[in-house]
């Protein structure tokens, strides 16, 4: 499955709820304000393990818009909109943690 998170983890618990609920084969795509969790900061440590497994993606355009491209944590894979579509195709059912 593909899980998208579009809220900042400093403001909502969407990412934590997603992390609590996903199975071992799911991947996470951070979009919109969700990309704030892709930056190296105190709230992103929970993602680190999944990122190490290559299961965390973030939308490049949303990273660039917020000026945080130099702060993206290691192992988080950046994708464009075409890459977003590829993830949807590859992982089947998508869940939005809005």
């Amino acid at each position: 499955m593909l899980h998208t998170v579009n809220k900042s983890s400093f403001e909502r618990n969407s990412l934590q709820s997603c992390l609590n609920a996903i199975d071992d084969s799911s991947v996470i795509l951070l979009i919109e304000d969700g990309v704030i969790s892709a930056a190296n900061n105190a709230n992103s440590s929970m993602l680190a393990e999944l990122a190490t497994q290559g299961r965390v993606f973030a939308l490049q355009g949303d990273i660039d818009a917020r000026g945080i491209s130099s702060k993206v944590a290691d192992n988080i894979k950046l994708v464009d909109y075409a890459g977003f579509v590829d993830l949807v195709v590859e992982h089947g059912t998508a869940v939005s943690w809005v």
Partner: protein
Amino acid sequence: MSTKKFMYLNRRAPYGTVYALESLEVVLIAAAFDQDVSLAFMDDGVYQLVEGQNTDGIGMKNFSKTFHALGDYDINQFFVSAESLTERGLSADDLMPLVWEDEDDDWAEKPSVKVVSNVELSKLMSEQDVCLSF
């Protein structure tokens, strides 16, 4: 018309919601009425001032450039929460170098952004006539 002290409290990241852009619109209205305006940035609001925003990939207006123009409207008090920056792995060096020109000092360029503690922010808020939250 009497002058009042207005503080705009910005707590949301830009682009994901419309709060940041709307705040900027209302700030410009107050400036047009020659009020004493200051801006505070805390929580995810600090991302509004991060340098190097590029919105080409999301098809939205990059309104961060507008902050550079506010000095010309006598808006030159930008207070940024030090705690909020630190929590997010950011520092003052990551913020746009906003300046204003002081006509009483031969139009010298002076910095508009000041990083302050939350204690200082709370004191600044208590000195306002009006606090508007976005």
